[in-house]
């Protein structure tokens, strides 16, 4: 029962590459991507035949059950993992080249701030590594701190901030060197719903202001629906894309939008996609 449904979605997915907005070349483009981990217990097929094109300025969420390869895909894009098949380009380059060109900022699940550096020091860290001049480091740090609403906390240490503030600092750090692409792997997974709501709102505003391309992994259906222009639903073993949903929601999204009909419908479709993937398993 579930199978034809998926097939249909997959067909849609494969047709995508040419459909990227404004007809311009996609920022991230994956064709027939395959990745197999070799482990002691034999190979783990983490990604299989993944096709996806992400256009400039899109906000793409990845959702799927645990272990379906969301993180793996994001890591491939970041050049942290190397696909065993297919092609993947970022800004027309290979992911490794893109990494060396510092084409993206990456936000990990936990905030991962260094406890021995102040918030300002943490944000300066990538700038130091990339060799920005001192004055510019200070200027950029100031700017991103303002962007994530943490002005005044520059001299504080991470443990002096709440979890939500830490996560914002971590986002600021990824923004500091102003890459066009932002990759975020479950950045709000550890936060409670209310804080999460607020950060979601802020993230949307930031995206709106900066026009960045964002890849966003989440486990939460409402979060995915609320944030994205495009939702990628994945299923595990081997990880593949079962559905790609273009959101009809407007760019402006008050939190109330979650009680709207359209929102609930997309959420329903995502849930269906997820269940189908599970049954299929």
């Amino acid at each position, binding site marked *: 029962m579930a199978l034809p449904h998926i097939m249909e979605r997959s067909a849609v997915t494969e047709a995508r590459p040419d459909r990227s907005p404004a007809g311009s070349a996609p920022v991230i483009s994956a064709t027939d991507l395959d990745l197999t981990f070799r482990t002691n217990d034999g190979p783990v097929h983490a990604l299989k035949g993944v096709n996806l094109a992400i256009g400039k300025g899109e906000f793409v969420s990845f959702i799927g059950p645990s272990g379906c390869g969301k993180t793996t895909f994001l890591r491939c894009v970041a050049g942290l993992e190397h696909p065993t098949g297919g092609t993947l380009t970022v800004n027309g380059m290979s992911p490794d080249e893109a*990494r060396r060109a510092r084409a993206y900022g990456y936000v990990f699940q936990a905030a991962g701030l260094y406890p*021995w550096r102040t918030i300002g020091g943490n944000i300066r860290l990538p700038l130091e*590594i990339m060799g920005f001049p001192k004055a510019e480091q200070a200027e950029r740090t100031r700017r991103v701190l303002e962007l994530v609403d943490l002005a005044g906390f520059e001299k504080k240490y991470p443990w002096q901030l709440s979890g939500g503030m830490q996560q914002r600092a971590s986002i600021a750090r990824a923004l500091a060197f102003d890459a066009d692409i932002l990759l975020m792997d479950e950045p709000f997974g550890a936060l409670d719903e209310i804080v999460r709501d607020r950060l979601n709102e802020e993230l949307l505003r930031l995206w709106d202001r900066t026009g960045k391309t964002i890849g966003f992994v989440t486990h939460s259906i409402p979060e995915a629906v609320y944030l994205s222009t495009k939702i990628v639903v994945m299923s595990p073993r081997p990880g593949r894309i079962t559905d790609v949903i273009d959101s009809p929601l407007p760019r402006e999204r008050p939190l109330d939008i979650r009680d709207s009909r359209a929102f609930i419908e997309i959420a329903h479709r995502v849930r269906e996609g997820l269940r189908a993937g599970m049954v299929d398993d």
Partner: protein
Amino acid sequence: MRALGPVLVVLLALLALWYAAVPVMNVQETLTRAERAGAVIEPASAVERRDMASIGLALRNAGQLGEAWSLERPRLPAPHQIAAEIWASTWDEEVNGRRGIVQSGSFSNRSLVYHAGITLTATAAGFAIGAVLGILLAVGIVHSRVLDLSLMPWAIVSQTIPIVALAPMIIVVLYSVGVQGLLPKAIISAYLSFFPVVVGMVKGLRAPDAMQLDQMRTWNASSAQVFWKLRLPASVPYLFASMKIAVAASLVGAIVGELPVQQGGLGARMLAGSYYGQTAQIWAALFAAAALAALLVWFVGWLERRTLRAMGGPA
């Protein structure tokens, strides 16, 4: 401060136990002395008493044990005897002694202050060498798989060699290649202290998780940058924990290194005390060494607190 109460109580209990043990431990010698002084002891001769249990002997001659707490060569000196010896060989010797700092302008070679100073110098030198060596080895092990595979087992084997027993020979061999004075002691001290540092530092340098290392990769950081900005700061707590162990080991090494050389130091002092049967002197040197160790460990702890605070840890 809250911890002081229990410590004092336990300390008092131990002291009481100690005082009670003194006559039992010293019973043979005490009775022999009483016998020489003409008292009637049961059994009468030292030969008969030799193989008897101390407690039984003490109970049977309870009246003759008065001297047990003030023997000159006790098996177990009474705490006040040790305290008196410590006082005599620190304050008293320095202030009133002919060679003391008050009258001669330099520390007396009969005072524990002087010997503790010598030991401290060797310990500091050895600890510095050991810590630096340990850190360098750890850096090598973390960055080179070949070193990791081949060196670590030998570091363990190195600690099974009774270096303490070899100290005299090592000093002689070093002597023959022209190394003498502080350095041989420091080398033995370093040999004992590098191992805890290697173990702790390897653990510390590997403390950053995969996520933090990946983070660095996303910024395309060089391995030097990863080391200075991530691994090294992350290893600091581990480094200090192992340095506390290492500094105590250094002290033992320095003391051992002083034994054969007999040119001052707490080790030489202990041995000389043992050699001349001056039990109180051994115990005093022993306590001085333990106090020195406590001081060194405290000092490393203080450094740790300062460093961590400077690094922004919760005060």
